[in-house]
Each structure stands twice: as C-alpha cells, then as structure tokens.
C-alpha cells in the first residue's frame, strides 16, 4: 500500500517536473529573445511541429504495444515515403496518386516491421533498425542522393500556408490527433493495444490476438511515417535526401516524454502531442537564439537520457511494488 503511494508520488513528481520543464523552456526563450513570443513565431512552431507530432503518435502506439521498445525506422520510412511521393509527382502522376503512394509506402514498411517482430521473432529495435536501412537505401536509390525540387500546390498549401490565419498543417495535425486519440484511447482496438503492452501473456490468455494487433500497431506507425513523408515534401518543396533522418531522435524524445507526463507512466496520445510541442519549442527556441545545430543535439541527447532514465527508475519502482 505504501509502495503504491510512493510510486504514485514519484509519477506525480515526474509529471510536474516535465510540465515545469516545458514552462521553464518557454520562459527562458521568451526572456532570451523578443521574437520568440510573437504570434507569427508561435504559429510557426505549430507548423514546424506538425510533422514531428504526427510521427510521435505512431511512435507512442509502438512504445505502448511493445511496453517500452521503439520504432527506430522512422527516418528511413519517412524518407522513403517522401522520395516515392516526390518521384511520382515529378513523373507527372497526380497529387492524389502520389500522396496515396507515399502513405502506402509507409504502411508497407511499417507492416514489414510488424511481421519481423511478430512472425520472425526479432527484437523490435533490431527489426526496425534493419527496416531503417532498407528505407534509407530505397530513399537514396530513388533520389540518387541529390535534392529533388518539386512544389505541388496542394501539398505545399497544407504544409506551409495559412487558412484564416491558422497554419493548415496545424489543422491537419488536429484531425490526426483526434483520429489517434479516438483510436488509441477510446476504441476497443486501443484497449487491446494497452492490454498487450501491460502484460501480453494475460492479454493472450484473455483471447486477444497479440501478434495481429502488435503487427497493426507497427503498421500504424508506418502509416504516420508515410503522412509525415508527404508533409516533408511540402515543407521542403521537394526532397533533400536524409532530411528525415534527424526526426528519429525528436520522435523518440516526444514518445518517451509522453510516458513521463502521463499519470500511469504509460505513454498516451495527448502526452505525445505535449512531447512533440516541447521538442518543437526547444528546436525553434534554440534556433531563434542562434545556437548552432550541433549544440542542439547535445541538449536533445541529454534530454533523451534524462527522460529514459526517469522512465527506467519509474518502471523499476513499479516492479518492486
């Protein structure tokens, strides 16, 4: 009983700490730069964070279902989806076909991840590491390693323009958020995913098809990579090879922050949105106060270690209980 209370207190402390960190980060940048709090910049953060947030929802699904493992293939799958989209656009295929192909490419590689984990029996991070390189290879093969410029009016509109003063990307993000929120937190399928993550043996014993729903969770993460890839083509008005690769760290960060900010220690979709915004603010703020990119990674790497260490300690406490 006392152990229970201690775990709950630790979780609450972690929650308050994470939210406090967000406030502190915002306050710091607001003090350091007069431009940070301008509405234009805040809207810009929303626009920049949309891709990351979409990815974090998929990552969160994988973290939940595998009970703490991750999808390492984010950079490669997103890159391949973007490369396929831009290649098809370049070849004269319509926007609809190109977008659907990008989404399909993400879904296919995500499905491959799922099969490798559930049917072949690979550890999730190894399976997704292999897929990462397949995706990167396909991306480099399609782009031949050089920048492909192409601006599609519709994709560009969604990724970069405003609708009535609000970034279209933010509106899209809201819809994707709602879809993931309903799917993961308020649907029978979502309850199965949480059940598998909580204890897969119990889940199997109660009749849940563990392999099938785990595969679907990985496929969903792949699909969110596909969407992120399409948005990336809009953001970059084409595609720079390997532009998606740095997203892995940010996505992992957002996914695990989601765990520290939820009361149970298990990530959820709202927490992922919070995590993505925190990382988005950090990235934007560091750029606004002109910190070079390589220092930025130092900060993010440190943050990753902080978050996953807190997570590990929390888990161990829960296990001791």
């Amino acid at each position, binding site marked *: 009983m006392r152990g229970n209370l201690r775990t709950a207190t630790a979780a609450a402390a972690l929650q308050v700490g994470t939210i406090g960190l967000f406030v502190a980060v915002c306050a710091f940048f607001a003090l350091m730069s007069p431009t940070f709090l301008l509405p234009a910049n805040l809207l810009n953060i929303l626009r920049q964070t949309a891709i990351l947030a979409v990815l974090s929802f998929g990552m969160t699904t994988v973290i939940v279902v*595998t*009970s*703490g*493992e*991750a999808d*390492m293939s984010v950079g490669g799958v997103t890159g391949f989806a973007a490369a396929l989209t831009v290649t098809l656009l370049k070849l004269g295929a319509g926007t609809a076909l190109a977008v659907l192909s990008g989404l399909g490419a993400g879904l296919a590689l995500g499905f491959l991840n799922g099969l*490798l*984990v*559930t*049917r*072949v*029996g*690979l*550890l*999730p*991070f*190894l*399976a997704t*590491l*292999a*897929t*990462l*390189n*397949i*995706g*990167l*290879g*396909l991306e*480099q*093969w399609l*782009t*031949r*390693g050089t920048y492909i410029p192409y601006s599609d009016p519709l994709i560009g509109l969604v990724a970069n323009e405003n609708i009535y003063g609000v970034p279209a990307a933010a509106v899209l993000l809201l819809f994707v958020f709602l879809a993931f929120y309903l799917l993961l937190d308020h649907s029978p399928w979502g309850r199965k995913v949480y059940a598998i993550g909580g204890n*897969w*043996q119990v889940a199997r014993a109660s009749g849940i098809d*563990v*392999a099938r729903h*785990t595969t679907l969770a990985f496929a969903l993460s792949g699909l969110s990579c596909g969407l992120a890839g399409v948005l990336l083509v809009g953001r970059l008005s084409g595609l720079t090879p390997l532009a998606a690769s740095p997203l892995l*760290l940010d996505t*992992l960060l957002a996914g*695990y922050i989601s765990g520290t900010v939820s009361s149970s220690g298990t990530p959820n979709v709202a927490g992922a949105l919070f995590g993505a915004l925190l990382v988005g603010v950090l990235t934007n703020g560091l750029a606004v106060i002109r910190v*070079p990119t*390589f*220092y*930025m*990674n*130092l900060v*993010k*790497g*440190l943050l*990753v*270690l902080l978050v*996953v*260490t807190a*997570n*590990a*300690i929390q*888990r*161990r406490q829960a296990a001791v209980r």
Partner: protein
Amino acid sequence: MRSTTTATAKEKTAPRPERTAWRLRGWSFLTEFGTLLAFLALCLALALLSPAFLTLNNFLTILRQVSILAIISLGMTLVMTTGGIDLSVGEAADAGALLSISLLSAGLGTLPAVLGGLAGGLLLGAFNGFLVGFLGVMPFLATLGTHTMAMSMEMVYTQGGLPIYPLGLLPESFNFLGRGWVGPVPFPVLILGGVLVLYYLILHRSAFGRRVYAVGGNAEAARFSGIDVRLVRFKSYLLAGLTAALAGVILASRISSGQPLAGESFLLDSIAASFMGMTLSREGKPSVLGTLFGACFLGVVLNGMTLLNVVFYLQTLIKGGLLLGVLALASYARTRRN
C-alpha cells in the same frame, strides 16, 4: 526488463510445426550452413566477375580493412552477449582517432597519445555502462543518447566537422600501428589477432565470460544465482568502448588524420557482423570466432561492391537487405534452440 522483452519477441512467434521431416532437415541445414555457403558463393561469384578479386594484393587489402571493423565488432559482440547493444561504438572509435591525433599534435609521444585516445573510449563506455548497468535504462535508448551527445561534442570539438590533421610529421611508431608490416602481414591484422585472443579468453575461457552469457540468457536467473548483473553489464560496455577506441586509433594511423564522424559507418556493420556470427552457432549464440567470420563476410561484400562499381546509393540498400536476412536467420536459429 530486457530479458522479458526478449521473451516477448520469442514467445510471440510460436514455432510452427514442420510439415515433414525432410523439410525440417532442409531448414536446419540452411540455417546452420546458410551463411557459410553464402560466403563461399559470394567469393566464387566475385572471383568470376572481377579479375582483381583473387589477387594477393586485394586479399591483404580486405584483411586490412576488415581488421578495424572486426575489432569494433568484438566489443559489440560482448555487449550483445549480455543482451544489450551499443549504438555509440562509432563515436568511441572517433574519440580514439581524434584524441590521439590531437595529443600527438600537442607534442606528446606515441604511447601517451594512444593511451589518451583509449581513455576517451573508456569514458564513453563507462557512461553507457553506468546508464545501462546501474540505472537500468534500456541499452538501445541509453546508447542512442550517448551517440547523439558524443556526436554533438565531436562537431563542437572539430568546429563543425573539420578533419584534424597533425601539426608536422607523425612519429614513425604511430604510423606503424595502421600502416606497418611485419614480414608479409599488415600490423593491424596482428593487432586484430591479439584482440581476438584476448576476447576469446575473456568470453569463452573465463569466469567473467560465463557470467556474461548467464546475464544475456536470463538476467533474473543470473541475479538469483549470485551474479552482480549490474557490474557485468558495466564492465561489458566499458570494454566495448575501449575496444572501439583502439580501432579508432588504428584508423587514425592509417589515414594520418582524425576524421570526425568517420566511425558512424562501423555501427551497422559491427551489428551485422555479430549477428552473422550468431548464425554460425548451433544455438544462435554470439561467439568470438563467429564475429570474425561475420566481419570477413562483410569485408568481402564491401570490397566486392567497390570492385564491381556498385553505386553508393545501392550499397545502403544491399547492406540493409543483408542485415535483414542475417537477423532473420539468427532469430530462426534461436527459436530452433527452444
């Protein structure tokens, strides 16, 4: 924590009943000798396709290239045997290279410079070991954090990625590490031999090695039988960092400079080499000799792609596919054991 996730992955794939005994024999033959056959087939194909492949000169080139990868892979294998992974081996190698060249430029002798380089790797390894062993962070996340931070520090140290060239001539003794010859044998190959013997003794002939296998097999059971799991993990990451830094020093000597981020390419290759070694063992367990074979296999693949002028954007794809195949084979060998 790790052991339960390993069990998850294993259990989720309920072994499918084989239909016929004939099929079973075919499969186990393929998984046991598949990589070996693939290696022989690859060598044969390369010998037919490229006249340059079967020359003594090329053979020595492959050996020299392989020696650096193999040394890093041995450290990776040790960490993998505990059930973990080290995503920061590339940065440990870079630490060895950048620090040793910098120290030489500062006027230090070969021995202190090399020791300084090794200390850099040791430090990264200790950091990983502390996170994984004592704080209980999942290995791939802990070492990813180290990887990111170390890479960032490298960029800061080299002012955004400028190679570090030595001031003046490097001492002959340092040059010898990566470029020397002892009779017909390149010196890096001799270093590899030494490291190989050491790792063989550590992993297969010592009490520590048995503990490492025990921790990797079932950490919980190891703990109950009185093994200090935390210390075993800590020491393994420490050794992996040190070993990778040694490889970095050899690399620096070979190219007479410190190239930032040069080590990153070894990460995937060293993982693949370790897994390739696992496919050779009957139980799908990592081993020192298996890893040496894996490194040679990869060396031949990389050499072959260069000889046949495979464009770089296809090389990633080929390596990714190869890794996937090897992972699947190793995993099949492991499920067969159970």
